[in-house]
């Protein structure tokens, strides 16, 4: 099967700090991959390299078979073709740790924004889809509320609906529940589980080992800017090879 995401030899530094030191990974259609690793290991940075919110200093990113064109070298590397970048970005549904719903728009407007103004789709059709998605994530009654009138869990579910409404090829989640109170995590995790069961391709950064185990096809453990270990869930949890991963799992209660 074709790879929807293909990262090759991604390196990224912030000034002197080398955060990613050559990372390659690929995600097939329908695959759910969890990125785990201790704080500061570069999980978010890797995820943000996929849609070029951070431009890698070297290496390449291919989405659905198309390589994102970059020019320049090292620190000065930047997207070469903005049209292409915007087109590719609109195939990637990003869900942020801190939701980042647009504060000046109602929930419905948030969801309809990119489909209408980026993808130029028909307003009526988008509206219908948006309302369906709100139903799906369980906050249909909040369509006309503003983000700050919602609980964190509701906001994150709205953010997931927003990402879904661009009909993305891949969903990218960056610790979608770590800004939430524990009692609100469940409602968001249920939605993500629902998406995994639908067969969506997903890349998920998470601290929640139990959830990663339950959901993922594959787990990637980042350490020191490299992939320390990767494999199927069973392999990772029952047949751990690297000592560091063993320590990490022990520290997170496994």
């Amino acid at each position, binding site marked *: 099967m074709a790879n929807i995401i293909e990262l090759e030899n991604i390196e990224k530094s912030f000034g002197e700090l080398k955060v990613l030191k050559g990372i390659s990974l690929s995600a097939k259609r329908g695959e759910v991959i969890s990125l785990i690793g201790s704080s500061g290991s570069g999980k978010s940075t890797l995820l943000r390299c996929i849609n070029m*919110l951070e431009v890698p200093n070297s290496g390449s990113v291919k989405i659905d078979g198309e390589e994102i064109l970059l020019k320049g070298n090292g620190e000065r590397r930047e997207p070469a073709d903005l049209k292409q970048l*915007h087109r590719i*970005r*609109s195939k990637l549904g990003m869900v942020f740790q801190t939701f*980042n719903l647009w*504060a*000046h728009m109602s929930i419905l407007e948030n969801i309809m*924004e990119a489909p209408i103004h*980026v993808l130029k789709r028909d307003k009526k059709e988008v509206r219908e889809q948006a309302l369906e998605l709100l139903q799906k994530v369980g906050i249909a009654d909040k369509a006309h509320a503003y983000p700050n009138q919602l609980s964190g869990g509701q906001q994150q579910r709205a953010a997931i609906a927003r990402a879904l409404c661009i009909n993305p090829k891949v969903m990218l989640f960056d610790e979608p529940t770590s800004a939430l109170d524990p009692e609100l995590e469940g409602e968001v995790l249920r939605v993500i589980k629902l998406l995994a069961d639908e067969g969506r391709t997903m890349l998920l950064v998470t601290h929640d080992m139990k959830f990663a185990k339950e959901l993922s096809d594959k787990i990637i453990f980042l350490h020191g800017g490299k992939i320390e270990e990767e494999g199927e869930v069973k392999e990772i949890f029952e047949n751990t090879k690297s000592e560091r991963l063993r320590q990490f799992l022990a520290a997170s209660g496994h």
Partner: protein
Amino acid sequence: MPDWLGNIIGQDLLDGLNYITNGKHLMWYASVRFTIIAALLGAGFALIFGLFGAILLNSKFLPLRGIGLFYSNIVRGVPDVLFFLFFPLAFEQLVEWFFALSACSAQELAENIGKWPPCPDAQWFLGTYEYLLLASVSLGIVYGAFSANVIYGAMQAVPKGQLEAARAFGMGPLSVLLRVHIPQMWIYALPGLSNVWMLLLKATSLLSLLQIADIVLWADRLGAPNYLKQVGLVHPDWRWRYYLVLFLFYILVTYLSERFFNYLRKKLGRGMVEA
């Protein structure tokens, strides 16, 4: 005023009423329009210059940022009274200079060095409304520099995540600016912009410097001592009374502005953090 009114309110009051409703006073009241037009038009220009200035200041491209910095720092340093005198005059002469290039003969140009305008054809006669427009542009330039600074700060205050989300969903730089950055900036800019508006409002009292018969000029004329019965009520130097009325006028407008900005804050603050 009809005479019978005197029976009801008394002759003194009637005289007073007659005095403050005589032709000159009515012209005084009507001259409020110049102040209002200059304030509103000036604010409009200030907002436009401020927005463009702020966008320049926010630019990643150094030469553009340089222009923004030059504008906001240099113009904020110039006293508004001076700029008010300078800009309309400089603009008028610049236009006349262009006229002169085509309207005056080479001989006239050569003979009349040191005279302005070099030939009568190049004379540009400005009426009150032309001066008013130039005054508004002056106000716009000066207070646009302040607004640029306020708006720039407000743009910095918009949480980065809001812009990042817009980029992540495929919006180009212009869409990010117009659909997220600027709409979210207002709530942070409002307190600063309301200050700039108050300053601009006060600066409208300088209109008489441009020969516009505004409320200040009229107050000056009407308050001047008058010893001739045929010119109206005989009174000594009453200017301080007239200036007092102007104070009250400006305080009233300030109060109304305050209420307007409160209303705006509620409206723009919908969904936003209370700024």
